[in-house]
């Protein structure tokens, strides 16, 4: 394999809080090849959104590197940032707060084109907007409507169209379907997959929903309190999950498959706390059914089989 499209090395993001440093993203190493989707799964507060925003430089990283085609973009100066904007975009969770309510749909989609200057001339921009709207399944008649007139699914399409307007190579999708009803969710997921096929896009798909992630990802990264606990290809992860947290997460998902109704559950006790000044060692240990003294040692991500990484002392 060549140079990955996106790579992070030792990426960290800490926040200052009144009770100490919050280690929101701790030492993340990931690779996303062109045309691939990395699913990032975890519960609320595990740092998955922060990770996405740090990669896009919406938040300044505390330490580490983000490489785009092998170049560290965290050292880019302001004028070089244009490269990032043209290639890396983001779509958001909330279809209500992610669109400027005072702008018409056409303006929302045209704005990035104007700011980046990829297309100039009023006519050309208009054509480009129409093309993008068509690509995202938005009928032309919505051009002059406003976000409040559209439902959640269509708003989410507008959000996607805005990201697609500058023809990016990589999109961070932050829970893009969590706020939608299942029937609409399926439409958006299909659209994302179609676009990927047509344009060779790469996604980083952030979600709390393992079912969705299974559907759309090539690789999956499971996060817990800012750390990666398991990282493997989709097939491997669903066939042979090793980390106790991944197992618990999988078994906690309610399924419509009645044959799995009476399955053995690894129900977890306790709840996630925030990783403020965390002690070294496994952050999952306090909730882990298999925790032992050894878990207090510095835990690190180990490759247990080719391409399958786990951070647990139990999995040698």
């Amino acid at each position, binding site marked *: 394999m060549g140079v990955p499209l996106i790579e992070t090395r030792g990426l960290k993001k800490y926040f200052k809080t009144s009770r100490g440093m919050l280690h929101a993203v701790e030492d993340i190493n990931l690779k996303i090849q062109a045309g691939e989707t990395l699913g990032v799964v975890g*519960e*609320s507060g595990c740092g998955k959104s922060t990770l996405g925003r740090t990669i896009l430089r919406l938040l300044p990283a505390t330490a580490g590197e983000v490489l785009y085609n092998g170049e560290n973009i965290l050292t880019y100066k302001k004028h070089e940032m244009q490269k990032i904007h043209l290639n890396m975009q983001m779509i958001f969770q909330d279809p209500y707060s992610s669109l400027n309510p005072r702008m018409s749909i056409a303006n929302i989609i045209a704005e990035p084109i104007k700011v980046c200057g990829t297309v100039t001339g009023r006519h050309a921009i208009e054509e480009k907007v129409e093309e993008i709207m068509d690509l995202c399944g938005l009928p032309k008649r919505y051009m002059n409507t406003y976000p409040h007139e559209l*439902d959640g*699914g269509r708003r989410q399409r507008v959000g996607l169209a805005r990201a697609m307007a500058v023809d990016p190579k990589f999109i961070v999708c932050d829970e893009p379907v969590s706020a939608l*009803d*299942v*029937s*609409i*969710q*399926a*439409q958006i*997921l*299909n659209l994302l*997959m179609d676009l990927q096929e047509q344009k060779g896009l790469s996604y980083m798909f952030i979600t*709390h*929903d*393992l*079912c*969705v992630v*299974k*559907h759309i990802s090539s690789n999956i990264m499971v996060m817990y309190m800012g750390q990666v606990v398991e990282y493997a290809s989709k097939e491997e992860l*669903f066939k042979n999950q090793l980390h106790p947290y991944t197992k*618990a*997460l*999988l*078994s*906690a*998902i*309610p*399924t*419509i*498959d*009645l044959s*799995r*109704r009476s399955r053995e*559950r690894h*129900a*977890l*006790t306790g*709840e*996630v706390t925030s990783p403020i000044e965390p002690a070294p060692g496994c952050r999952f240990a306090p909730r882990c059914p298999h925790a032992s003294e050894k878990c207090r040692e510095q835990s690190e991500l180990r490759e247990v089989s080719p391409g399958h990484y786990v951070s647990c002392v139990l999995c040698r």
Partner: protein
Amino acid sequence: MRESAVHAEKCENLLEIQDLHVQYNTDDAVVHALNGFSLTVNRGQKIGLVGETGAGKTTCALSILRLLPDKVGQITSGSITYDGEDLLHAPTAYMLSLRGTKVSMIFQDPMTSLNPIITVGDQILEVLDLHYPDMSKEEKEKRVDEILSLVGIPPSRKNEFPHQFSGGMKQRIVIAMALIAEPELLLADEPTTALDVTIQAQILELMKELKSKFNTAVVLITHDLGVVAEFCDDVAVVYAGEVIESGSVEAVFAREKNHPYTEGLFNCLPDLSSTAPRLIPIPGFMADPTNLPEGCSFADRCPYCRSICRSEKPQMHVWGGHGIKCHLFGQKEVE
């Protein structure tokens, strides 16, 4: 009428909703939230009410307790009978004695459903204050301690305020509040939607335990078919304010015979065990509740739609407890 409530022989059907119509009169339009909604709940039954946003699930629960927003929400026709008592015409005093004791409700968002400035212990205790005025203070406190440990909260924390608890803990407190008077019927409105999956699993497990302990009938309102499959015995699928399919979880989730909408829901659900590369979305959007079509409200989105679907409302066709409200099943033998 009042005597029937103290009837020695209890009705088998705890709750019966017949052809209920509810509308919201807003400034701009009349929203038809429930349109001929019918549902029967037996004692000790766990029934799931599934549907998408705006299908009328919450409206149904609020109607049962007569807690629809004042002046805006209006029950236009139909009946709700609880244990033989006509709730729509019962006096306010009767409704007050019903709420919290016989029928209690859990709301969706545990973050906002607790009063932020009253200790959680006092909020639970209030239920006893309201309904058992003769109970001694010590007895009440004891009951609160018991129910708190039952839902997994150390009773020593009862003097803390809601903001000192996490989301999952708050939902446990809400459940404790709902169950302390040992109600016969629990209306749970999306009790786990705001929570993470691992916490959702804990809460569902807790509800299951408590349900079997108190033999409470539960109406679980959710948009998640998976939750229904795991928690409920029976299921009712709601679309545009009516139940369009109902039956045992086994019958409905067997996916052999379903309403086209239910079928569509199954097809567009990304599931762990499915391997389909693409999901099959339901085309279009839910019927506009301010302007409902004449015939079947699903007709516009239905792949099997025929001319009759646009002109006539379908009847519920029932086979041994499994009912489907669709013209497709019209010609087949009925009951």
